[in-house]
């Protein structure tokens, strides 16, 4: 009934696709870093008009299923890029582009929205007194943010960042819709040869669990490191 040797074989084949999924996860996090920080600031400082737009962006991207965002952007982006290439007179065949570009664009946009919420709540968790204390001892506002606020906000954000990374990683399982050869895509291809779908999906079930646990472990270690540094600073 269940072909165990196929299951084990597929497990190792799909392991080779882990870097692709991880790449999408962490590159989209990196891409989202600055825009998300900007959105968090705009919304915290309530900059007129723009903060409403930012709120709508965040609400829209968080309020619709990611699969729908993929479907929309994957049917829009290629033709937009195509007309852009034609408009700028460059002779680039749109079908030669690596589909991972679309995945990064979509996951980047989506991550920007979720990451901005993580940053916003982290920045709000830092007491206002910290900022005032920094200013009062003669630091410039930029210095206060870089040296006082951000390090504390980062610590507050770490658990949420961990959850977010795991969520993005889980969402990369939809990258196969854009013909990216991620874990799920490889499993699908392997399964299609002999209709061994159960085995293939069971194999990647374990792959996803292992990688997610590894991501969580990594964040746990950095959390411990950060709190250890704080303890040393406090002289405890």
């Amino acid at each position, binding site marked *: 009934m269940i072909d165990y040797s196929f299951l084990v074989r597929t497990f190792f084949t799909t392991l080779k696709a882990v870097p692709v999924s991880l790449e999408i996860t962490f590159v989209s996090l990196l891409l989202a870093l600055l825009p998300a920080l900007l959105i968090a600031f705009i919304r915290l400082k309530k900059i007129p008009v723009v903060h409403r737009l930012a709120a709508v962006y965040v609400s829209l991207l968080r309020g619709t299923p990611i699969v729908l965002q993929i479907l929309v952007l994957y049917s829009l982006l290629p033709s937009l890029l195509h007309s852009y290439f034609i408009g700028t007179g460059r002779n680039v065949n749109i079908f030669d582009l690596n589909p991972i570009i679309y995945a990064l664009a979509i996951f980047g946009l989506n991550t920007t929205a979720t990451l901005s919420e993580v940053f916003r709540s982290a920045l709000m968790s830092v007491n206002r007194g910290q900022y005032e204390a920094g200013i009062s001892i003669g630091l410039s506002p930029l210095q206060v943010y870089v040296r006082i606020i951000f390090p504390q906000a980062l610590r507050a954000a770490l658990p949420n960042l961990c959850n977010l990374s795991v969520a993005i990683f889980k969402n990369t399982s939809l990258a196969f819709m854009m013909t990216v050869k991620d874990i799920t895509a490889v499993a699908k291809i392997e399964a299609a040869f002999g209709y061994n779908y159960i085995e293939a999906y069971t194999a990647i079930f374990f792959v*996803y669990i292992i990688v997610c646990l590894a991501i969580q472990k990594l964040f746990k270690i950095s959390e411990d490191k950060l709190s250890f540094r704080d303890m040393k600073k406090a002289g405890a």
Partner: protein
Amino acid sequence: MEYRIFYIQYIPVALAKLLPYLWVTLGITVATAFFALGLSVLIVKGQLCKYKFISKMAQAYVVALRCTPPIVLLFIVFFGLPQVLLSFGININFWPKAIFVVTALTLLYAASLSEIFRGALDTLGKGQYEAAISIGLTDFQAYTRIVIPQLFRIALPNLGNSYISLLKEGSLAYTIGLIDLMGQGNLIIARNYGGYTIETYIALAIIYWALTILTEQVFKFLEKIAAVKQVKKGVVQ
């Protein structure tokens, strides 16, 4: 070269065609929430069980399912469940797709619900239960009258968020052929031979966005009611 123009007029048309299927999406998520509630109670009970083996198993279940992408579990259930049941002599290959979707989503959602309830239980602490027992309530009364009402109040914001993610994860059901909002949207596009793709997807996005905002508001309202009740009872000044 001529480019396809965006027909904004088609969005209301698509909305009208999509809205009858709102009930499918809502039905699936409500059924899932119902079953997952039961399963999550079992999981939490398992986690708190004094037998190490059971509590470890419940723990492992939650960890594993929290790490599983919805689409992977959906496929496992869709391809695996018929085979498993076939070995017991039950053929479910022609059963409605909704059963597979609800099964897969229930397995996933129960894991997140149990996490929420665990967190709420930790917040509540043992004192409430012990106080209830000490004034002479039975075990059952202590739970139904003291512990569970407070649990729901504490868990309410997280329950709202998790229901919203359930709504969004449910949209994947179209990949195994369920005709819910997403399924109907893709059917509309297919019937138009790929025309009005963007317009249909935008209509879908409007519906999902509205659903999310509505759910948020409903849970905010429920939180307010719960808070007022607490004040009236004199629990919170």
